[in-house]
Structures are given as structure tokens and as C-alpha cells.
């Protein structure tokens, strides 16, 4: 929030659109602005009233470079827009850089998303450092209801909840890497970096840096789904395969390979398999292990076929995986391999399986992966 928790004292806030961008039709601008304001009124008691003349609380305009407030824009890219916290005069006013290309889709800069962010400032919110929040300062495109739980907590701190609102589905907050109960969705290497997927996010762990970097999956790969079930790197082919549901995508570095997504059944799974829980490439043997429910499969990358005799039971294949209460673990969330050891992740625990000893030899916490 801004210092002194600046907010509008009245829950009826007026706005006026003083000019328009030529990038969009007038009605598209009106709709984007309307929807951006409705985003905030959906979760608070705030109501917005449009004025067509005179001074409104939130004066909205498009301008370029020096546009009258001594806070100039910077030409294309870079700075996209800004807004002032609640107050008299300039307070609440929202300005968009006309040197940007404004759109109503995922190209260039989506006016609705930027407006929703800026109106957050106009209502009294500062920036969030949760990359999944609307109030994160860096632009990223996303579908669906744009507010995360973090945004809603912030705005309701100022204005309280909306008692009448229909159920909204906010996006969950960013995961905490040092949460001792942290479980993960998938993990893979990518050219020496480790990518760890959890909910809408992934961490990049670079060997030269101790601090993992948290990013939204879709801000790096907009074409990927919001959640990933499994991932593995085939270093010989220099690709990473990402799985979500019955589909898989291929990455070459950070670039999506054309021709994807494809169905996972192309790998030889029966149609009854609806998702892969974990995947790991064993570079010593050239095989890739897939984990689905209580089973695991071995896939020959060279021939492009499943090895005969699979699937096999995880419990039989990797003895020693036990939960704290002594129950056998029969499912896996994620997997990696290094130097003869297979690391299997189930909930908040990492099981280190030794191929030499043919059993689990060590159990640690999942967030060891994140230097926690």
C-alpha cells in the first residue's frame, strides 16, 4: 500500500476517459476500462460512475513523452503507464503511454490488464513482488480473472470485502520456497539450469546463483498451460518435454518447438493414461522413466518406443519410499537423475534412490532443491 494507506473515503468513485488511443476502437477502450474497474469492484464495496465532462476522481488519458505531469513517458516499450494514488487534483489520475501499441488480446500490451493494474494504484495499492499478482510491476499477459489472492488481500485491507460479490476465483499466491510442507509439480534440467514447477510458477536455479528466481510459467511461455504435471530434458536432443494433462510440449532452450502440443499417447501410453505425474531421463542408459499413478514406464528414446514389460509398480521398483507414518509411497510428483541416483519427490519429501544399492538411501525435504 502507499504510505499513510491513501484511499478514497467514498466508495463511489468517479472516472472520466478524456481521450482515446487510435490503436483500438472507442468501444473497445470503453470496454477495457469498464472491465478493469469491475475487476476491483468485484472484490470490494467500491462502485464506479462514469463522467463525460468535468473533473472526476480518476481522470484517464493517453499521452506520450512529456504529457503535463512532469513524469514523462519514454517512447515505445519500457514504461507503459502510470497512475497516482487517491487524492485531490492529480490523485487517482491514470495515464497510458500512447507510444505503446494497445490491444485487446495477447499481442503487444493488453489495455485491460494494464488498466486494471494502474487502477490498483489509483485506488491505493502499491506494487507487489509476487510475480503472479496483477500488482507486480512487470507486464505479463494472462487469461481469466486477473487478481490473485495477494491483490485481493491488499485491496480489501483498504476497502473491505464485497458482501454481494459472486464467487470470484482469484489466482493463488506465489509459493514459498522455504515452506517445509512445499511439494512440487515437476522438475527438469534445462542446459545446466534447474527448473522447478509449482502451480502457475517455476523457479530457475542457476548453478552460479544461490537464490532461485521465481517466474510465472505463462510470462515466459504464454502458449504453455498454467500448470505443468511433469517435465524432463533429453540433453542429447537438446529438448525439454513439458507435460500437462494428455498433451506435451517441446522446448529448445527457451523456445517452443513448432508442431506442438502433441498427445502423450504418441509415446506409447494407452488411452487410459490421462496424465503423467513425473518424468526423468536417465542419460546413462538413454531411457526415460515416466510415472503415472502407481506405475512407472521405461521409454527408449532411440527407438521411440516403450520398453517391454512395463508398466511396473512404483513400490516394487523403488523400495524404501515411505511416508512419515510408515505407509508406503506409491505415487511420485516429480523426478530427477544425477550420477547414479534417482531423486523422487512425493509431497514435501525427496527420496534418493541408489541404482547401485537398488533402494532408497536418503530422505530429505523437497525444498532442498531450492537451497532452503
Amino acid at each position: 500500500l502507499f504510505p499513510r494507506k491513501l484511499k478514497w473515503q467514498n466508495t463511489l468513485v468517479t472516472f472520466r476517459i478524456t481521450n482515446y488511443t487510435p490503436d483500438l476502437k472507442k468501444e473497445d477502450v470503453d470496454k477495457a476500462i469498464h472491465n478493469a474497474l469491475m475487476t476491483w469492484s468485484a472484490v470490494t464495496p467500491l462502485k464506479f460512475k462514469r463522467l463525460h465532462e468535468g473533473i472526476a476522481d480518476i481522470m484517464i488519458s493517453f499521452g506520450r513523452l512529456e504529457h503535463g505531469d512532469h513524469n514523462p513517458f519514454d517512447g515505445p516499450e519500457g514504461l507503459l503507464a502510470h497512475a497516482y494514488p487517491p487524492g485531490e487534483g492529480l490523485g487517482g489520475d491514470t495515464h497510458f503511454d500512447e507510444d505503446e501499441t494497445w490491444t485487446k488480446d495477447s499481442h503487444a500490451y493488453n489495455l485491460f490488464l494494464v488498466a486494471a493494474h494502474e487502477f490498483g494504484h489509483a485506488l491505493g495499492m502499491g506494487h507487489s513482488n509476487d510475480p503472479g499478482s496483477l500488482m507486480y510491476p512487470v507486464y505479463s499477459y494472462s487469461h481469466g480473472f486477473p487478481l490473485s489472492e495477494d491483490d485481493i488481500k491488499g485491496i480489501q485491507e483498504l476497502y473491505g470485502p464485497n458482501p454481494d460479490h459472486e464467487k470470484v476465483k482469484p489466482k493463488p499466491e506465489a509459493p514459498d520456497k522455504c515452506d517445509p510442507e512445499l511439494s512440487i509439480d515437476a522438475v527438469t534440467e534445462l542446459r545446466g539450469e534447474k527448473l522447478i514447477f509449482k502451480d502457475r510458477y517455476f523457479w530457475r536455479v542457476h548453478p552460479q546463483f544461490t537464490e532461485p528466481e521465481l517466474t510465472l510459467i505463462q510470462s515466459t511461455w504464454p502458449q504453455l498451460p498454467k500448470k505443468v504435471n511433469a517435465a524432463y530434458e533429453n540433453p542429447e536432443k537438446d529438448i525439454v518435454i513439458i507435460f500437462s494433462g494428455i498433451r506435451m510440449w517441446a522446448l529448445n532452450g527457451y523456445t517452443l518447438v513448432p508442431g506442438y502440443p502433441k498427445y502423450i499417447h504418441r509415446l506409447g501410453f494407452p488411452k487410459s493414461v490421462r496424465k503423467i505425474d513425473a518424468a526423468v531421463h536417465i542419460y546413462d542408459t538413454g531411457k526415460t522413466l515416466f510415472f503415472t499413478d502407481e506405475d512407472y514406464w521405461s521409454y527408449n528414446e532411440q527407438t521411440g518406443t516403450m520398453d517391454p514389460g512395463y508398466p511396473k509398480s512404483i513400490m516394487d521398483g523403488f523400495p524404501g519410499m515411505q511416508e512419515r507414518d510408515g505407509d508406503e509411497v506409491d505415487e511420485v510428483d516429480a523426478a530427477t537423475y544425477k550420477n547414479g541416483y534417482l531423486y523422487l519427490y512425493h509431497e514435501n519429501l525427496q527420496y534418493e534412490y541408489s541404482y547401485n544399492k537398488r533402494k532408497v538411501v536418503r530422505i530429505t525435504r523437497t525444498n532442498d532443491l531450492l537451497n532452503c
Partner: protein
Amino acid sequence: FTKPVPGDETQSWLLAERYLRRYYRMQPGLLGTSKSSDVMTEKIRAMQSFFKLEVTGNLDDNTLQVMKKSRCGVPDVAEYN
């Protein structure tokens, strides 16, 4: 150790200076007994901390990458006047 700043180092420093002045309230010029490089290091650390990057105070690749991304013009630090 961190990777050296790639490409044109001067341009990178200028970009970082502009970025930190705009979003992290770095004052231009000298500030009393503080060296301008110390001030900049502190501001880089603040920015790295905000974006959950490795806090080194150095203008490394990851930090520069974030500085180059399109973003909102409101500062990340308090007191927006």
C-alpha cells in the same frame, strides 16, 4: 562469482541508472560523503531484493534482464509524490 555485464557496459550502466532513479528514488549527483557508486550498489540491492533476485549489489545479467522488461511507471519503493 557473478558473470560480467555483457555487451556495451556503459549502456548497461546508463540503463540501470535511469531505472534506479525512476523506480528506486536514486538521487542524481553526489550525496554528502557517500560515493555515487555506493548509492547505486545499495539501490541495485534494493531492486534485487524486491524482484527476489540474488542480492549482490552487482549489475549482473539477471538484474539487467529484469530492468529491460516493460513495466508500470510507479516506483517500487515508498512515497510516491
